[in-house]
């Protein structure tokens, strides 16, 4: 097991009332979708927010990724709604 940092932005951060989780993940065979499942098991509030966000986006080490992208210990993962810049 090793730790990864999970960040929440915008409506996700606001609904949770906090911006960051640190979570233990297995060393191998772990992707963004597995992380969502694990977070949901450990934190019901996070599960609700992630599943209720339409078109949830994920970034791995500050790059947009699909949910099938592998996560390694030490990575920074962020979850947020579709971006609305400009």
């Amino acid at each position, binding site marked *: 097991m090793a730790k990864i940092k999970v960040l929440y932005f915008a409506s996700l951060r606001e609904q949770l009332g906090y911006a960051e989780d640190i979570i233990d993940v297995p060393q191998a065979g772990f992707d963004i979708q597995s992380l969502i499942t694990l977070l949901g098991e450990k934190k019901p509030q996070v599960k609700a927010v992630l599943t209720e966000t339409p078109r949830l986006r994920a970034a791995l080490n500050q790059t947009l990724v699909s949910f099938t992208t592998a996560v390694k210990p030490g990575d920074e993962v962020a979850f947020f709604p579709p971006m609305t*810049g400009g």
Partner: protein
Amino acid sequence: MQHVVVQEAAFDVGHEYTRLAELSDHVGGVSIFVGCVRDTAGDLQSLTLEHYPGMTEKMLQNLSAEAFERFHLAGCTIIHRVGTLGVGSPIVFVGAAAAHRAEALQATAFLIDKLKTGAPFWKCEQFKDGRRVWVEAKAADDEAAAFWS
């Protein structure tokens, strides 16, 4: 010249124009777009822009580099504000300097279309009656960004 900034402060359009126009004698056209806080129904108090520090700068720099190469630019500027902005406030400045007008104009449209859906900014509207609403992403913005793919 590529100039990419995320800041709370306002920007000076005249100053940013001059920076692009004076790059070289080869510049034949400078194109600029500025996005502002719009109040369609007269009920908006302010707009707050949140972002993902670090990722934002990286994505805007990638976007600038892509425009610079693709449209053969002499200069490219992206300035995006964050924080709480009043009605009418400028939010974003994108600008391009090129030898020919078509490249400058296309680069500007490319930059703002891509930036709308491709950089980690989120807008929250505060209304005069106290409501707070996160702005929803528009399908039209995804389509505009996809046009350039």
